[in-house]
């Protein structure tokens, strides 16, 4: 019973009792993402790892065009905003000239697997010693829910209102599997952040990717299958369920390429 508790709220909320807090690598700016969207969680996971590995002063991030275009408003690190799809080229320029820095890109599926396919494949194939965080929500979130290269067959979007007809609109692109085939990539994995257990796994994957970059191992690629409840026109809870039932069978979670 609450009223019989021998301890007050004031007594609990003391610094020495703190078990978890927001990393100072997230700024105070309010996230611009829709409630329930995975982007915010993914931002925080990456920042937590950079914080824990004490890399703030050595990190340069590259923000994409997409819902996370303003990532530099939220992440308390040095960042560059890239043109749509060009983040891997921008990151290449940074890393080649600042080889001792930790350099990452953060890209959506439209950014990475449509307009930026060439930049992505070639950065991976050159084995650029960078890390790519790839947020696959199967849709163009930012522009209002149009079909993406990753949109599932029959999936309805603003530009496939009767469902994606693969015969005329092409097939969803499993770019991560393609990238895993390239000799320049070292670690390729697919994760999600829709449950606490998955968040923990994603965090591990981020840690590994950063470790490998420190060791100059080449390109690490962390896909995070995420939701876009607004674009999918679902509640956050429905979106996560739909993701489990439809996205994961097509984009199975787990490591795709691990160091031997």
């Amino acid at each position: 019973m609450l009223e019989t508790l021998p301890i007050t709220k004031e007594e609990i909320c003391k610094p020495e009792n703190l078990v978890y807090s927001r990393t100072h690598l997230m700024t105070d700016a309010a996230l611009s993402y829709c409630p329930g969207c995975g982007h915010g969680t993914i931002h925080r996971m990456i920042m937590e790892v950079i914080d824990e590995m004490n890399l703030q002063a050595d990190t340069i991030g590259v923000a994409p065009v997409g819902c996370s275009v303003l990532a530099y408003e939220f992440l308390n690190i040095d960042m560059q905003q890239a043109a749509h799809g060009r983040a891997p080229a921008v990151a290449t320029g940074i890393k080649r000239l600042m080889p001792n820095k930790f350099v990452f890109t953060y890209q959506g599926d439209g950014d990475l697997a449509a307009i930026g396919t060439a930049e992505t494949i070639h950065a991976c194939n050159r084995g650029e010693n960078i890390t790519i965080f790839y947020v696959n929500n199967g849709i163009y979130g930012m522009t209002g829910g149009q079909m993406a290269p990753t949109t599932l067959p029959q999936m309805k979007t603003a530009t496939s209102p009767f469902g994606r007809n693969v015969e005329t609109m092409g097939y969803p692109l499993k770019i991560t599997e393609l990238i895993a085939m390239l000799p320049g990539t070292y670690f390729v994995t697919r994760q999600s952040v829709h449950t606490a257990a998955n968040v923990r796994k994603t965090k591990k994957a981020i840690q590994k990717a950063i470790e490998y970059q420190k060791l100059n191992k080449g390109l690490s690629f962390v896909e995070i299958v995420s939701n876009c409840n607004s674009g999918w026109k679902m509640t956050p809870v429905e979106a996560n369920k739909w993701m489990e039932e439809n996205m994961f069978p097509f984009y199975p979670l787990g490591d795709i390429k691990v160091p031997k």
Partner: protein
Amino acid sequence: MSATKDIRLMKGNEAFAEGIIRAGCDGYFGYPITPQSEVLEYLSIQKTKERTGMVVLQAESEIASIHMVYGGAGCGKRVVTSSSSPGISLMQEGFSYLAGAELPCLLMNVVRGGPGLGTIQPSQSDYFQAVKGGGHGDYKMIVLAPASVQEMYDFTKLGFDLAFKYRTQVMILSDGAIGQMMEKVELDEQIPRLTDEEIIKKYPWVTTGKTSDRERNYITSLDLNPARHEILNRKFQAKFKKIEQNEVRFERIDCDDAEYLFVAYGSSARVCEKAVQLGRAKGIKIGLLRLITLFPFPYDEVARLAKQVEGILTIEMSAGQMIEDVRLGVNGAVQVEHFGRLGGIMPAPEEVLNVMEEKFIKTKVYA
């Protein structure tokens, strides 16, 4: 200082490549295209990593090259790309983002004839693209027009200096003739590349990792707040205005007593220089205004000369692009005509002199 001068016989493209190395370039990103492939080839054989620590990377496209330049420039590095017309068209996206993020860098276009794949022969038909924009948005870049292999070399250091002075892009607008021809070049001593510490001290805006002594830095061309974005754009315009006030460069050749005037830049200016000599040998008082900066354009000098001469003939290897700026400067004060060859053909000195005589001198009506 070495006692003897370091003079070499070089192609224009090679002189540019040697120029950027000696000017302390940190990184070059490029993609092969005729007639400028010698730049990447020369840099590759120079083992720049060992010579100065300079990074040279062949990118998968000109789009990638220019965005690699963006990344490097955002770290305050001296970065360069070069290409020829079709490749420069692909880079326009990047130019616009570089302008929006105010990143300094050096670019070169060894112009060939267009439109489309056009020809690999020299041309000057990318004037509008270089001087008036090309990419989206209200922006300008400083455009330098070399007329010799020596200037292909000299404009690299000048280009870096201007780029960092104003946080702007500088383009060397060359052409297939200047890029490919061989002339003697006098080289300078190597300028050491800046260290990361020097860069951070000189340019506090660079992204090199957020340290505890400063706020985070970010490079972006985005601002969704209309009021702020207008202020930002006005700041860009003020910068371009300042460049217009401070950086106009041109050369007056036999202009003092000229009655007729050529206006030209690059290869065409070389042709005109010879035509001036031929004309003067015939007793015609001709001069040449050779443009060195295309942006900023020497409107004032053109206006001054327009009051002095009886006719102006612009010579361009294009259908007539620069002539529009000349006419703006002249503002109706005197007749301005254009002569140009297209398709990669360079006009001959006799040819342009003949046009000058036909258009202005033989038709002269005496009262």
